[in-house]
């Protein structure tokens, strides 16, 4: 009798009649580190079988059935960020097991469902679902008669068949004839942009990425306006829900097309987003979010059936990560799991700078979070020459001895200025004392660059691009809110700012901003300058991790529960702190 052994993450197969897993690996061309040469003494050749969390020695485990073997070190998922490189053991909530559909004989009165659960239990040696009875799944049981037939042997009526049972979150979600890659899609629903990552959950690889502007924008640019639409229009909730769902389905089509994977092989999706995006995706009323005390309707993690929600396999599941509070959502929880907040060994601040600047300050024991109304200045909105970080945007600026230099994305003529360029411009002008600590221009410094625009002084950066006094004020209000948020969180934990050992900046702006400039305008305390690290789209990484590791999914719930939310608007000290942080660094006149 021969068995099929599938090795992950390589996907290589071996057909063997028996022998050890190590021998099968050699036959398949899979390298397993076994320095003792298979003598069973070094304990280095650890693998896991059929997704079991227990690891066994490949050299001492016999192949007695078809199985999927996940190989040690390379079975770990590396997060692709420079700053918080950490490794997470690959143990997705989505797994498949090869099952034998035995020929039924007269007198076997088991139900179809029971026949399946017995087959799954036999295939996993009781490991999956730890031998317990699987939760009955009527949607699957109802189609099993045909599914068994698809697996060969006319569903066990004529002979044995073979199929693959898909297990999600410990439940049997589907049974099919053996198929290609087992995939899942991670979504980061931003107010402005939605990103989708298609993952092969057995290798941990990202197969494709796509993004699209959030089509809910036509109902309002920010979460308040969109919530208001839902509350005012009779079909509001439905309109916003179907807008976001069609965008997610569009992205699913795109990533599966890129990767050459059929949609029906995508069995799970995970979703992060701010609390409002979370609610609108689920069709929940945002009423409680936008009236004090601004609490979510639902914060707990949630596993939903995909049927009728997303165009992945309709037997699939959707994992909704938990929220922390009304204005600190699952996207922040995503940042926390990506940055390893469950195993912090030092005081760490994570900031996600978007329209709202959400931030979390935590050490090994405690975590506090808040949301600051930073406004869209760093996204290029509300700035006279502002634009997104696309071709033609000034992205960096410096002033050295009165000489102004800048770089333009794409290298052509400057058409506008994006967030990182704006930050640099203000920092350089503060440092050159063109902008006074109060935020006012001193038009006597570099006078040749000043002109009047709509009655206000404006500073020319390039032929077409300039900065007005009002633009500087927008930056000032944004940085004051963010800096005050940092101070309030530190005060809440009873720590000094200089005790913060790491500052992780998430989001696109964080990736491109100069830490020097962020400290130069006082957005981040100067004492932390050497400790600032960009971490890319950490919220999206968190959504991926929830699909690649059951443990990380559980950690998300724990982190969301343990984080204390600080409502800045309700804190009597906030206004003072905010006003204190409005001035730019420098000597007062």
């Amino acid at each position, binding site marked *: 009798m021969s068995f099929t052994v599938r090795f992950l993450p390589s996907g290589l197969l071996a057909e063997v009649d028996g022998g050890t897993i190590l021998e099968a690996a050699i036959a398949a061309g899979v390298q397993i580190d076994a320095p003792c040469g298979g003598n069973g003494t070094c304990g280095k050749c650890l693998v896991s079988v059929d997704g079991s969390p227990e690891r066994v020695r490949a050299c001492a485990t016999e192949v007695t059935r078809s199985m999927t073997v996940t190989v040690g070190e390379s079975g770990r998922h590396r997060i692709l960020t420079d700053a918080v490189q950490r490794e997470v053991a690959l143990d997705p909530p989505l797994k498949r097991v090869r099952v034998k559909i035995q020929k039924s004989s007269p007198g076997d009165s088991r139900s179809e469902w029971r026949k399946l659960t017995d087959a799954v239990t036999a295939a996993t040696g009781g490991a999956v679902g730890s031998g317990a009875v699987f939760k009955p799944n009527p949607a699957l049981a109802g189609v099993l008669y045909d599914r068994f037939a698809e697996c060969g042997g006319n569903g066990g009526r004529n002979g044995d068949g073979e199929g693959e049972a898909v297990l999600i979150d410990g439940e049997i979600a589907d049974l099919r004839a053996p198929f290609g890659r087992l995939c899942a899609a991670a979504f980061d629903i931003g107010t402005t942009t939605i990103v989708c990552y298609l993952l092969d959950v057995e290798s941990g690889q990202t197969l494709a990425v796509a993004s699209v502007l959030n089509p809910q924008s036509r109902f309002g640019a920010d979460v308040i306006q969109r919530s208001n639409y839902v509350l005012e229009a009779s079909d509001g909730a439905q309109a916003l829900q179907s807008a976001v769902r069609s965008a997610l389905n569009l992205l699913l089509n795109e990533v599966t097309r890129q990767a050459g994977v059929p949609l029906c092989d995508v069995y799970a999706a995970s979703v992060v987003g701010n609390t409002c995006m979370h609610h609108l995706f689920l069709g929940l009323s945002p009423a409680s979010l*936008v009236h*004090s005390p601004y609490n979510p309707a639902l914060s707990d993690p949630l596993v939903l059936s995909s049927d009728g929600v997303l165009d992945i396999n309709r037997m699939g599941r959707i994992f909704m990560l938990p929220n922390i509070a009304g204005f600190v959502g699952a996207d922040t929880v995503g940042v926390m799991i990506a940055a390893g907040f469950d195993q912090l060994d030092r005081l760490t601040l994570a900031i996600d700078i978007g329209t709202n600047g959400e931030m979390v300050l935590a050490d090994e024991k405690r975590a506090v979070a808040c949301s600051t109304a930073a406004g869209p200045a760093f996204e290029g909105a509300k700035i006279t020459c502002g634009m997104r970080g696309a071709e033609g945007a000034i992205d960096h600026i410096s002033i050295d001895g009165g000489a102004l230099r800048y770089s333009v994305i794409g290298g052509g003529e400057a058409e506008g200025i994006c967030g990182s360029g704006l930050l640099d411009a203000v920092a350089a002008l503060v440092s050159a004392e063109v902008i006074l600590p109060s935020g*006012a221009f001193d038009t006597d410094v570099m006078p040749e660059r000043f002109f009047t625009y709509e009655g206000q002084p404006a500073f020319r950066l390039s032929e077409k691009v300039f900065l007005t*006094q*009002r633009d500087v*004020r927008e930056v000032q209000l944004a940085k004051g809110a963010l800096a005050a948020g940092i101070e309030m969180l530190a005060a809440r934990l009873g720590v000094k700012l200089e005790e913060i050992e790491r500052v992780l900046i998430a989001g696109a702006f964080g990736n491109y901003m100069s830490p020097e400039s962020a400290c130069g305008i006082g957005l981040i305390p100067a004492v932390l300058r050497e400790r600032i690290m960009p971490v890319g789209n950490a919220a999206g990484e968190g959504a991926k991790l929830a699909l690649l590791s059951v443990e990380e999914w559980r950690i998300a719930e724990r982190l969301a529960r343990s984080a204390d939310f600080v409502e800045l608007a309700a804190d009597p000290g906030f206004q003072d702190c*905010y*006003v204190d942080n*409005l*001035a730019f660094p420098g000597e007062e006149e």
Partner: protein
Amino acid sequence: MSKLQEVAAAVEKGKSKIVAGLVEEALAEGSSAVEILNSMIDAMSVVGEKFQRNEIFVPEMLVAARAMKKGVEPLKPLLADAGAPKAGKVIIGTVAGDLHDIGKNLVAMMIESAGFEVIDLGVDVPAEKFVEAVENDPEVNIVAVSALLTTTMPSMKTVVEALNASPARSRFKIMVGGAPITQEFCDEIGADYYTTDAASAAQKAKEIA
């Protein structure tokens, strides 16, 4: 520069750390509490004018308003004794469902700096509380209502409706403001005046009191 001018300059520049000290010094030099208050009120009206001319912006106004507040603190007990004349009495608050108060506080400070007595009901204030406050105080001649969120605009409507139904309605005016509020909305809900910012709110209060 005289001490009074120094006090005014400190308020205008928003030097909240030194302003209280300067006020004490001015008192020690013999200036009266009312004189000192007036010099600060003048400074704030300069701030308001500069704001309206786009010479200064919200950050500087917030800083100046805070300095004014610090400067008034040592004067308060003295002013109460002096029975200083008032431009009027204003009740102000942010509507139910809304916790935002930085804009409302700025308006309160600018109105106070214009010589009014201001009773601040705080944030998340239900309609009944506005009505109760104005009915229990016959001196009140302006009620100022703030909402920052689009979603709390209906609360503002509720407040204005409740105030319009009050038997005391003839003796006070209703002012509304906040980021999402417009003149059209003000007219629609039956409020008396809408102003776009704290400086024009203070100016309007002076006109109508």
